[in-house]
Each structure stands twice: as structure tokens, then as C-alpha cells.
């Protein structure tokens, strides 16, 4: 056997690795500055500071950026970033001492960014916030079904001859609806195109995030050099994730607030009920009977809700749209539904809609038969079968 040559890392590779890592980070974060800016920030060049203030502002905002917040002055953004970092427990005082006008502090800002990156999956969180909504969500909510007024009662048409002008009106309406439909489809195509482009952009960001995860180590080694270059502080900055625990005092505060809210709610409900009674209050047997009927109906609805809740054994039935995501077969369910439950919900909905469709089709058929019978001498030519 020959001597195995150890593969020595090519020095050129090493030199490239850091810029590539930073480039991946830059592509992953929204509105991130160029890798060159990161390098300048390490050496505290003034041009790097504004870009990093803006990046931190974007990263720390709880909501996706909109036009209004992006156009805030740099000074306002800088102040906001400082207070946001403070509330998250950022320990370095040097950052707070930076001037508000956003002109200095590239290195400190770089440290702050690294601290945020170390605490949790920041790129992933940002990507989730801004992901493209594809409409591949199904709503899970009982409220819709219970609140719907039910099918409209079929209207009874008066018997009598049909005016030809009415038929011409209906024909014209169909033609216009056809044209409107074509315009809507054209619009749908244009919007789908837009959606595809946004998806492509999102894919590029996701790929950058993956790449970043592969190359992270080099970035952290570089950040250690940045930290060394900074002035030391009393409480050393560590890049370890730290989740602040709420103390017992916080819990008591919360409980008190909850109690106050409940009292306020009770008072408001009482006032509303009294006002309603004053408005509605009627007398007489019919009114009492109607009221009793209402109360029975409401009690029945509540009982149905209660039963539905108990059936689920109190399993949290979340409301709102849920995305369908593939996971490993053996992974225990996270916060969400199993595909089976989702399918069942969809099937129930489908059955409901089909019933409505059949009923409407029946009504249309009856109407057409009546119209056909009403005018002898009219020939009905059905459309060519497709």
C-alpha cells in the first residue's frame, strides 16, 4: 500500500471560504448589505454603519416590512434597534452609546447581528415570515358552518307568459358574463406569472439559507476575531443561545392583568345585556313564546358545540388556515393536523357543496322546463356536446 497522501486544505480554498460564507448569509437575510460591507464593518469603517443599522431594523421588526416602516429615517430606525436589542437582553453597553444618527459603530453592530444569529434560527424565522402564500392552505374552523344561514329557499316564480325581452336580457347577461370570465382568466394568468417569479426568488433565498448552514463555522471563527478587536466589557458577550426566563413576579403581574380584564369584560357584558333588554323588551305571550323559542335554539347550538368539543377530548382545534407539509412518517405530530383529519374535513365540505350544487341544478332544470313549456313555437337548441 502506498502512503496515503492527506488531503491538505488548499490555501486558496480557505481564502475563498469566508467570503462565500458571508455571501450566503447576505443572500439569506432580507435587505442585507454586500459581503464587502461586512468586511468594512469589522474595521469600523463609517460607510458600513448605516447599512447594518437598517439590516438590524429589518431583522428585529416583528412584522414583515412594509413601505411605511422601511421609509423611517435612519435615526428613528437606529433608536428603535437599540431599544429592541435592550429588551431582548443584549449585554454590551458600547452599542447603546453609539450615536443615534447611525453614522458609526459598524463593528458593534456586527457583534449584535452575530449575537442574534447565535440565539436562534434567525434566517429560517425571517423566511417563514415572508414566505409566498400559495393558497395551498385549508381553513379549519367550525364557526363558518354553524354561522351559515343555510340554503336559500327556492323562489316561486309567478305563473304566466314569459316576455321575450326577459329572455333577451338573460342571453345578453350570459354573453357579458362569458366575456368577464375571459378577462378574469387573463388576469389569473398574469397573477400566476407574478407568483411564479416570487417563488423563484424565494427558492433562491432558501438555497442561500442551506448554503449558509453548511458554511457557518467559518463565519463564527471570523466573528471571534471581530470580538477580539472590540473593547472588552465587564459582562463578557457570549455567543451562546440564552432564552430569558420570566420570573415569578412576571406571572403574578400577568394574573392580575387577566383578572382586571375579566372584570372589565363582565361589566361590559352586563351593560350590553341591559341595553339590549331595554331595546328589545316586549310584553305579551307571543313575545314570551318567541323568546323561549330563541333560548331553546341557542341552548341547542351551545350543546352541539359542547359535544363537538368533548369529542375531540379537548384537543386544541386550531382555527385559521393550515399549510400542508410533508414530514417523516414516524415523526410525532407537531402543532398541526394529520393529513387524515384534513382529508376528512375536506371530504365533509365537498359533500356539503355537492348537495348544494345538485339542488341548484335541479332548480335550474325546473325553471328551464317551465320556460320551454310557456312558449309553444319556440325552438330550444341545446349547445353542442363537448
Amino acid at each position, binding site marked *: 500500500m502506498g502512503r496515503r497522501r492527506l488531503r491538505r486544505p488548499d490555501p486558496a480554498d480557505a481564502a475563498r471560504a469566508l467570503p462565500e460564507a458571508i455571501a450566503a448569509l447576505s443572500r439569506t437575510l432580507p435587505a442585507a448589505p454586500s459581503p464587502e460591507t461586512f468586511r468594512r464593518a469589522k474595521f469600523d469603517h463609517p460607510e458600513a454603519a448605516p447599512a447594518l443599522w437598517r439590516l438590524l431594523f429589518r431583522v428585529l421588526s416583528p412584522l414583515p416590512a412594509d413601505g411605511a416602516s422601511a421609509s423611517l429615517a435612519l435615526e428613528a430606525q437606529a433608536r428603535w434597534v437599540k431599544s429592541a436589542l435592550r429588551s431582548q437582553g443584549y449585554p454590551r453597553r458600547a452599542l447603546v452609546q453609539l450615536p443615534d444618527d447611525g453614522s458609526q459603530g459598524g463593528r458593534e453592530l456586527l457583534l449584535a447581528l452575530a449575537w442574534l444569529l447565535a440565539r436562534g434560527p434567525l434566517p429560517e424565522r425571517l423566511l417563514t415570515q415572508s414566505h409566498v402564500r400559495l393558497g395551498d392552505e385549508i381553513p379549519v374552523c367550525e364557526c363558518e358552518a354553524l354561522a351559515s344561514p343555510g340554503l336559500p329557499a327556492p323562489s316561486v316564480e309567478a305563473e304566466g307568459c314569459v316576455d321575450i325581452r326577459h329572455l333577451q336580457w338573460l*342571453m345578453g*347577461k350570459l354573453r*357579458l358574463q362569458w366575456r368577464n370570465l375571459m378577462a*378574469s382568466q387573463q*388576469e389569473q394568468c398574469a397573477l400566476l406569472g407574478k407568483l411564479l417569479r416570487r417563488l423563484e426568488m424565494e427558492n433562491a433565498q432558501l438555497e442561500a439559507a442551506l448554503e449558509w448552514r453548511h458554511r457557518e463555522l467559518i463565519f463564527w471563527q471570523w466573528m471571534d476575531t471581530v470580538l477580539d478587536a472590540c473593547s472588552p466589557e465587564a459582562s463578557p458577550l457570549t455567543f451562546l443561545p440564552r432564552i430569558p426566563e420570566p420570573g415569578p413576579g412576571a406571572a403574578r403581574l400577568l394574573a392580575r392583568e387577566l383578572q382586571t380584564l375579566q372584570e372589565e369584560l363582565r361589566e361590559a357584558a352586563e351593560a350590553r345585556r341591559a341595553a339590549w333588554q331595554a331595546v328589545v323588551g316586549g310584553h305579551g305571550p307571543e313575545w314570551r313564546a318567541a323568546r323561549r323559542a330563541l333560548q331553546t335554539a341557542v341552548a341547542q347550538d351551545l350543546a352541539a358545540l359542547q359535544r363537538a368539543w368533548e369529542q375531540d377530548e379537548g384537543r386544541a382545534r386550531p382555527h385559521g388556515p393550515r399549510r400542508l407539509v410533508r414530514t417523516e412518517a414516524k415523526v410525532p405530530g407537531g402543532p398541526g393536523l394529520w393529513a387524515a383529519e384534513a382529508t376528512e374535513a375536506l371530504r365533509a365540505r365537498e359533500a356539503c357543496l355537492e348537495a348544494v350544487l345538485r339542488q341548484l341544478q335541479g332548480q335550474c332544470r325546473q325553471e328551464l322546463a317551465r320556460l320551454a313549456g310557456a312558449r309553444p313555437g319556440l325552438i330550444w337548441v341545446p349547445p353542442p356536446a363537448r
Partner: protein
Amino acid sequence: MSIVTVQLGQCGNQIGFEVFDALFNDSHCSRGLCSKRENEAYQASCKERFFSEEENGVPVARAVLVDMEPKVINQTLSKAACSGRWKYGQHSCFCQKQGSGNNWAYGYSVHGPRHEESIMNLIRKEVEKCESLSGFFIIMSMAGGTGSGLGAFVTQNLQDQYSSALKMNQIIWPYGTGEVIVQNYNSILTLSHLYRSSDALLVHENDAVHKICVKLMNIKQVSFCDINQVLAHQLGSVFQPTYSGEGLFHYRRNPLGDLMENLVPHPEFKMLGVRNIPQMSENSLAYSTFTWAGLLKHLRQMLISNAKMEEGIDWQVRPPLSGLPPLGKMSVNKETHFNTSIANLVILRGKDVQSADVGAFKDPALYTSWLEPVHAFSVWKTQRAFRKYEKSAALVSNSQSLVKPLDMIVGKAWNMFASRAYLHQYTKFGIEEEDFLDSFTLLEQVIASYCNL
């Protein structure tokens, strides 16, 4: 979905400018009386429909300007650019150096074919900028020369090249005592041609708008600018965004299509009129408050008695009692006659709009016997107030209200035609007597159809 506007002639261009200005100013009005999110949705909807975006952010009106002389177009372009808030596209206009001397036939038979390619190219470029096209507005006068003849020609071309897109012509009905001798000839030719190639004719009467300026806006010397601004206000109150069925923040994507579906599906009945309430000078606005009940009551009576503004309404006119047969055929000679509608669209904008009760408009007595209120009446709403009016309502109706003016014009034109007066101006450029006869026939048919409601 977007609407492309074609502004034709002096009239079309001056009005078009006021319309875009009114739409833009309303969508950027700070007193929308609604939440910020609501306001942004409204603005975005208006913008997508009527403006396209240019690189430096200034919205560009989706419009093509056409005239046979440069003066009015240049004025219009510079007025828009001066405002600094929106503008017309640099290459969106077509004009020539000579006029057409108020000659309908010259506009239709000479200017039209000669400049067809250039004009249609401009329109095509504007259409390509739209992600999806809802349809066209064509703004033109009915009785003029260039605007009318060329307008009829262009509308026909649009029918050929964009047959699936909707076309609504905004026609300016001339003053009864107009200055142009042949205005009635021009009017009947325009109307008959448009009836064949357009989907809807939204008529604005100069006389009616003039009265609004004098009586309601208290303007002493009424200029065309005043008239055009009132017109623009009316159009804006119809076409600015309103909710689709899904409720708050979701604005109707295709108001032009929805309007046409509800009002003009029948090929014989294409004439629409607009009324709106309240209408007043901005100085008086601050001191007035309105209730929906009051506004709707006045609007309904305006419709029934064929009044064009909220002053001087004849409250004696009543709908025929339900159950009784209709009051016989309409005679154009009767002074006060109940104005039967085929279909109506009410548009409500402003505070507490959900509480507005439009039940009175669903009275079957208002409508012709062959269309029930459930098919004939529709209502659009939005909480967002329009141009500082805390509450405002507009009514677009397909009704008998234009029969009398139309009959008058046809009568006058016929009298001139019977003596063959001024016909040579038309026959010189290819509009023969047969064309006139065809026009008379078509319009008589339209009058008869409306009278027999």
C-alpha cells in the same frame, strides 16, 4: 383589472384630464374616514385600474389622447405634468396640425382611415402595459366634428380588434341651444354608429350639468372647466373602488364588467345616465350633514321624476300602484311622466354605509314588467368616503330618462333632412343619404323600445 381611456377631440381631452385628476386626488385624499389598511387597499385598487407605474414612481394615466389639432392636447399634457402628482405618458398622444372644421363625415371617413394605424398602435401599447384588460372608456362629444366622427370610427375599430373587451362610451350630450348648425345631424350619426359597436353609452347632458353648476355649486360664470369637474366627480363616484362580495379590504376587481352585466345586457337598451347626491361647493360641505335615509329618498325621487339634481324635484310624481296595469304607453308629449327603469345600480360611499337601507329601490313599481327587482337592482358599497363627502350616493340607471331629449334631436335632424339642408357636407366625404336613413331607423327603434317599457 385595468381600464384604458381614449380621449377624443377637445371635449374628450379636457374631460379626460378632469376625470384622472379627480380619481387621483380622491384616492390620495386624507379624509377617507376609514382605517389606514382600508385606505391603502382603496388606493391600490384605484391605481391599478387607472394608472400605470413609471420608474421614478409618478403614476401615468392609462390613456391615449387623440385630436386633430395640437392646442388642447398640449394644454392637457402640461396641466397634468404641472400637478407633479400624476401625468400622461410621453408617447401617448396623437395629433395633427389641422382641424376638421366640425365635419363629422370628414372625421369618420377621412381622418379615421388615414390615421387608423397610428391611433390603434397607441392603444395597443397602452393595452400591453395592462396586466389584464377590463375594457375601454371612450370620452367624446356627440355633436362635434373631430371627436364625434373620429370617435365613432375608433369605437368601431375597437370592436373589431378587441371584441372581447368591454367598451363604454362617455358621450357628452350637447346644449339644446347649441352653436353648431349641423349638431343634430352629427348627433344622430354618432349615436347610431355607437349603438352598433359599443356596449354601453353613458350620457352626460351639458344642460343638466350646467344647471348643477349654477344652482348647487353657486358658480356665477359657468365655464367648461366647471362643467367638466362636475362630470369628473360623477364618473369618479361610480368607478372608484367598492367592495366585492367578500367584504372589507376586498375591492371589486372588474367594476366595468359588473356594471355592464347588471345594466346593459339587452342589445336594444344601452343608454345610461348618472345622478349623484349630494353635490355642492366645497365651502358648503363643511356645514352640511346628511342621513342615508334622506339621501336615498331624494335620489329615488330624482330617478322617478327624471330630475337631474336634488333641487327642484317634483314630489308629485309617483310610481304606478302595484297590481294595476302600467299607465299606458309613454307619450313624449306629456310633461311629467313617471320614469320607468329597466335596471338601476346604486353606489354608496361613506360613513355607516352598512346601515343604509335601499329597500325603496327594490319596489317593483319602479321597473318594467319583464324584469324583477332582484334582477334589475344592484347596490355597491364602501366605507371609504369619496372626496370629503362624508356620505355620498350615485345612481347609474338604464331608464326612459333620455327618451325625450333623444326624440327632440331626432325630430330636429329629420326636419333638416327632409329639406336636404347641409347634406352636401356629408355626401362629399362618403356619408350618403342611406346612412342617414339607417341612423333614423335605428334611433326610432330605440325610442320605441324605451317608450314601450
